[in-house]
């Protein structure tokens, strides 16, 4: 089991305080820079391991950064604190994005990211809560996160506890029926503490979702299941912060976050083959240049 990196945790607390201080422009700038840092880490991890799911990591980055940077009540030095907010990454193949974010928050030392996918590394291809603090549930097979999130939200209600539960879903994984079992239950129980976030990058492994097994009309589907539907630009931190506000309609909230697979890398954006393609040396150099530019 990895252990916390207290200095990194302190830096994270300072960042979160700044984001929450109420100065919208400064919050957006802070989160934008954090996203660029994390994207660079992801590229380095995947290039180093010669393996990974780059496209989906980059589409979900701003969602994770906004949640950890500005929304979730968490203490990386007490990852099992009973009253913590829960974030379940249902699209477990975006593990690299989660690891880079957790390391930035101080759940474990950033140097560990260099072991991504190496033999015996705690940082495997899908997150394992036995090894990585901050991971709430071991995901990988799709369609698993939302039912677990429903359970977390029911537990909060039974205990009279105020924690919030967020489940980050891929859009392609909404083709799994288990999501809709859970969506129905959350709507039935009016689980207002539960927020689902759909990383709507419109691509699945080999093709567009709409060509494979169409999800649209997606907002109408969630509404029909009893959810409050919000739509946001999934790469606009300020818009995401707004969308992650607590439920306003007495129903669970789903944020349909419009994203771009491979976001931030000119050569990878919105291209299906970058679902799990590995950048070569030239592409890594280009990525560094593009992302360095974004951190300014």
């Amino acid at each position: 089991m990895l252990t916390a990196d207290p200095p990194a945790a302190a830096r994270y607390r300072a960042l979160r305080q700044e984001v929450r201080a109420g100065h919208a422009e400064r919050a957006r700038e802070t989160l934008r820079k954090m996203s660029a840092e994390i994207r660079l880490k992801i590229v380095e991890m995947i290039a180093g391991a010669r393996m990974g799911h780059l496209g989906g990591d980059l589409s979900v980055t701003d969602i994770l950064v906004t949640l950890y940077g500005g929304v979730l009540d968490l203490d990386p030095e007490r990852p099992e604190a009973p009253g913590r907010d829960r974030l379940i990454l249902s699209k477990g193949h975006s593990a690299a994005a989660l690891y880079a974010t957790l390391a930035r928050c101080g759940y474990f030392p950033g140097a560990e990211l260099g072991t991504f996918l190496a033999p015996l590394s705690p940082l495997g291809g899908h997150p394992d809560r036995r090894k990585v603090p901050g991971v709430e549930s071991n995901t990988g097979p799709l369609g698993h996160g939302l039912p677990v999130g429903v359970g977390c939200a029911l537990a909060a209600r039974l205990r009279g506890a105020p924690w919030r539960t967020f489940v980050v879903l891929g859009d392609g994984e909404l083709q799994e029926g288990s999501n809709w079992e859970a969506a129905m239950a959350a709507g039935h129980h009016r689980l207002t503490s539960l927020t689902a976030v759909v990383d709507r990058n419109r691509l699945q492994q080999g093709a567009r979702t709409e060509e494979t097994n169409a999800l649209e009309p997606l907002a109408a589907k969630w509404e029909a299941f009893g959810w409050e539907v919000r739509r946001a630009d999934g790469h606009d931190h300020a818009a995401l912060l707004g969308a992650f506000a607590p439920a306003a309609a007495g129903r669970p909230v789903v944020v349909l976050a419009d994203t771009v697979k491979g976001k931030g890398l000119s050569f990878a954006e919105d291209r299906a083959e970058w679902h799990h393609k590995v950048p070569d040396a030239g592409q890594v150099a280009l990525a560094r240049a593009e992302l360095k530019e974004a951190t300014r």
Partner: protein
Amino acid sequence: MNGPTLHDCRQVFAEELAALAREDPRVVAVCNDSVGSGNLTAFREEFPDRLINVGIAEQNMVGVGAGLANGGMVPFVSGAGPFLTGRALEQIKADVAYSRRKVVLCGHSPGLAYGQLGPTHHSVEDLSWLRAVADLTVVVPTDREQTRAAVRWAYAAEGPSYLRIPRFTVPDVVPAGSPFAPGAALTLREGVDLTILAIGSLVPRALAAAGELAAEGISARVLNTPFVHPLDEAAVLRAAAETGALVVAEEATLSGGLGAAVAALTGQRHPVPLRLLGVSGFAPTGDPAFLLDHFGLGVEDVKRAAREVLAMAAARTPAPAV
């Protein structure tokens, strides 16, 4: 015929669960519409907020159980065995066992209990499937005593477990206060010529067979291993060494249940003549008692298997010098 009184164990399961819920506010029941068949009606009346009926949605049911455990509750996730295990197998593997969430999975009406409803409703594969899942304890209580003990044990255990809650009616056969833990196999009858290992509905049949074999001059030990996984390997190896022949009887598929576990263990560590009695193939139409006999799980079948392993053991032993 006036035999011993037979009991369905669902009632004691429900009573014990309600007792735990009175003691510990973290205890919740999660079910898939099976409030009635899981005998949870009284639980719902007493703890309306703590019976979560997710409807007919087993994958969600098991995931919800894992989430409740994440949130500090102690969920007993209860559904008909075939649907709980077959439909939600990946949730059991990933959300519960691999995520190390303490969820108590309670499979009702297991084995051939649904009789005439047919193979879609039989749960004879559960032991094979779940024994293959790492870090999940698989428990098959036999009677009311062991059903109570199983619920208590699972509640106190550190990790997740699967309890096969009996429905096929059985007499009380396990002495009150018997130890109930992994590594505590129970010798229900002493014997020296062979050992019959039995679980669940086959325990009373194994005991009856041993009684009748005694009249033939055969001394059969009856060993009960309610913990199918992890198996009490020491007790099984001791039985192999001390009695020299084994019969395993269970209401489950032969491909991966207790029999397969015993065969893998003794085959590698202490080979002895062995017969496995269990279910193979999909069942025809019939009530549970008929189906047990159909699959060769009757008292006569157990006796025949005992004679066979004894003959095999005798053939292996060099004839004593005259």
